[in-house]
C-alpha cells in the first residue's frame, strides 16, 4: 500500500475543517454582536426621538409670549444637507441626532397655522438605527380672566332648542329656543330667581310645542313663555304663566357661561390617569396646582369605556373640575365621590355629548354642545341644545364651588403632551 503524501492530505483536510468551524463561529459571533449593537442603537434612537419631542415642547413653551402662534413651532421643512425635515438637535452623551417638527397631522407634513390640532414628529438616528416618535400637543391659551364662583339655581339652562320625549327635572329649567315635547318640570322645592321673582320653574324664550304633549310645572312655581304655547301646559299648585321673557337674558347667560368655561379651560391642569381598564382613581391631595380647586383634564375618548371614577380624599373645602378635550363625548363613567355637588365637568369645546351608558354625575358645563340624554344627569346642565329619549331624569344637586379661584395671570399659555403617542 502506497501512503505517500497522506499525512499532508490529512493535515490539510483537518485544517480546512478546523478553519470552517472557526470561521463559522466567527460569523455567528459577529452577527450576534451586530444584532446587539443594532438593538442597543435602536433603543437609544427612540429615547433620542422622545428627547426631540420634549425639546420641541420646551421650545414652544418658551415662545408662547409671541402673539403669532404659528411661529412657535418648527416647520416641516428640510435644511440643506440634512436627511430629514425639521430642526436638528442632539443630547450630550449620545452619538446621534434627532430632527423634529410640528405638523397638523402625524401622517402629513403641513405647517401648523397657530390653531387646530398640533402634532410633533421626531426622527432620530443612532448608528444605523432610525426611529420615529410623534405625539399630539395640548395648547391652552387664556386671556387671563379668573373664573367666578357662581353656580346656577337652574337645573338646566339650554341656549337653543330642546326636544324631549318625556322625563322630569327636580329643579327649574330655562330654554332659550323652542321646546318641543312633553316634560315634567321642577318636581322638587328649589326654584330659580329672575328679577324679583323667586319662584321661577320654567323660563322659555321660544315656543313650547307638540300638539297634545303635556308639560307640567310643579309646586306652584311660575312659567315664563316668550313664544306661543302650542301644547298643554299644566301648572300644578297654581303657578302663574307669564308671556314675557327678558330680551337679553339668554344672550347674557350664554356669554357668561362661555366665558366661565373658557377661563376654567385655561387653568393649569393635571392629566387624569385613565390607564386602568376598570377604575380611575383621583387622589385630589396629589393635585396642588390651584389650591383647593382641583383641576384635571381628560380626552373625550377617555370617557367612553365603562369605568368607575373614584374621587379620593376629597374634603368639603375642595372643588373638583375636569376639563374635557376634544369634540365628541360618549359618556361611560360612574362617579363615586364624597361631595358630588362640587364636581364640574367642563366641556369647553365639545360639540356632542351622549349620555346613555351611565348616569353623568356632576355639573355639566357644555355651552357649545348638543346633549343627547338617554340616562340621568345628576347635576346642573348648561348646554347649547338638548334632546332626550325615553324618560331620563335631571337631578338637581345644587352645584357649589367650595372656595374662590386664585387670580389667573393676565396672559397664559400652557403647552404639553395631549395624547396619540406613537413610536416606530
Amino acid at each position: 500500500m502506497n501512503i505517500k503524501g497522506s499525512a499532508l492530505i490529512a493535515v490539510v483536510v483537518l485544517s480546512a475543517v478546523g478553519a470552517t468551524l472557526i470561521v463559522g463561529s466567527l460569523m455567528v459571533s459577529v452577527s450576534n454582536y451586530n444584532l446587539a449593537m443594532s438593538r442597543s442603537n435602536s433603543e437609544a434612537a427612540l429615547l433620542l426621538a422622545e428627547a426631540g419631542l420634549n425639546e420641541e415642547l420646551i421650545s414652544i413653551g418658551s415662545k408662547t409670549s409671541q402673539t403669532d402662534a404659528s411661529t412657535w413651532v418648527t416647520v416641516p421643512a428640510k435644511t440643506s444637507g440634512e436627511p430629514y425635515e425639521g430642526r436638528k438637535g442632539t443630547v450630550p452623551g449620545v452619538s446621534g441626532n434627532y430632527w423634529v417638527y410640528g405638523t397638523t397631522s402625524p401622517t402629513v407634513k403641513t405647517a401648523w397655522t397657530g390653531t387646530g390640532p398640533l402634532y410633533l414628529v421626531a426622527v432620530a438616528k443612532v448608528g444605523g438605527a432610525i426611529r420615529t416618535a410623534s405625539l399630539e400637543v395640548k395648547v391652552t391659551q387664556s386671556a387671563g380672566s379668573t373664573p367666578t364662583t357662581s353656580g346656577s339655581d337652574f337645573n338646566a339652562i339650554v341656549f337653543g332648542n330642546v326636544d324631549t320625549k318625556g322625563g322630569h327635572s327636580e329643579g327649574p329649567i330655562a330654554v332659550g329656543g323652542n321646546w318641543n315635547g312633553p316634560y315634567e318640570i321642577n318636581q322638587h322645592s328649589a326654584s330659580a330667581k329672575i328679577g324679583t321673582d323667586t319662584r321661577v320653574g320654567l323660563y322659555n324664550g321660544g315656543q313650547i310645542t307638540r300638539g297634545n304633549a303635556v308639560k307640567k310645572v310643579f309646586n306652584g312655581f311660575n312659567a315664563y313663555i316668550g313664544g306661543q304655547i302650542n301644547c298643554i301646559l299644566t301648572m300644578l299648585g297654581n303657578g302663574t304663566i307669564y308671556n314675557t321673557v327678558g330680551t337679553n337674558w339668554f344672550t347674557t347667560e350664554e356669554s357668561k357661561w362661555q366665558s366661565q368655561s373658557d377661563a376654567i379651560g385655561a387653568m393649569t391642569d393635571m392629566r387624569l390617569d385613565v390607564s386602568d381598564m376598570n377604575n380611575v382613581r383621583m387622589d385630589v391631595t396629589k393635585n396642588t396646582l390651584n389650591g383647593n380647586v382641583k383641576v384635571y383634564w381628560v380626552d373625550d375618548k377617555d370617557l367612553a369605556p365603562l369605568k368607575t371614577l373614584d374621587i379620593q380624599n376629597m374634603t368639603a373645602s375642595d372643588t373638583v373640575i375636569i376639563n374635557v378635550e376634544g369634540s365628541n363625548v360618549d359618556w361611560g363613567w360612574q362617579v363615586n365621590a364624597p361631595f358630588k355637588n362640587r364636581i364640574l365637568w367642563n366641556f369647553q369645546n365639545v360639540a356632542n355629548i351622549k349620555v346613555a351608558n351611565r348616569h353623568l354625575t356632576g355639573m355639566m358645563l357644555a355651552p357649545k354642545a348638543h346633549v343627547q340624554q338617554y340616562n340621568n344627569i345628576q347635576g346642573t346642565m348648561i348646554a347649547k341644545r338638548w334632546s332626550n329619549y325615553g324618560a331620563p331624569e335631571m337631578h338637581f344637586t345644587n352645584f357649589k364651588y367650595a372656595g374662590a379661584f386664585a387670580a389667573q395671570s393676565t396672559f397664559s399659555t400652557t403647552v404639553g403632551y395631549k395624547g396619540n403617542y406613537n413610536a416606530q
Partner: protein
Amino acid sequence: MRNRLRGLTLVELLASTVIASLTLIVGANAWGYCMTISVQQHQTSVGSQLARANIERAKVLGWANLPLGTLSGTTATHTGALEYFSAVGAPLANSTGAIFSVQRTVTDTGITVSGTTYTLNPTSKRTVTATVRTMSPSKAVVSMATVLAQDGV
C-alpha cells in the same frame, strides 16, 4: 513496513507541520476574537437593557420628582448612586459579585437660579443619562440619554 512508510518524507512532514501550526495559530486568535466579541455582545445586550430600564424609571418618577442637582452657573447636575447588577442584569444590594454598575445623572438647564439654589420652571430641561459600566475592568459599555419636559412624554 519500511516500504509502507516510504511516502512520509521530510518535506511532507515539514509542510504538514507548517500548515498545522498556522492553522492552530490563526484558529487560536480567531477563537480568542470570538470569545471577546461574544463577551462584548453580552455586555451590550444586558447593558442596553439596564440603561433603558434606568431611564424608564426616571420617566415614571417624572420631571417634577427627579432630585435637584448641584448648581454650577446656570446648570445643575445630580449624580445618582451606583446601582449594581449581576451578569444577567439582576439587581444586587452591593458591589459584591456585581458584573455591571449603572449610574444616572440628571442635568438641569433653563432653571431659575436664586443665589446658591435653584428651582425648575415650566421651560426647564432635564437631561437624564444612564451609564452602564463593567466592574472589572471599569469600562463604559452603554450610555443612553433623553430629555424630560414638564408636560412631555
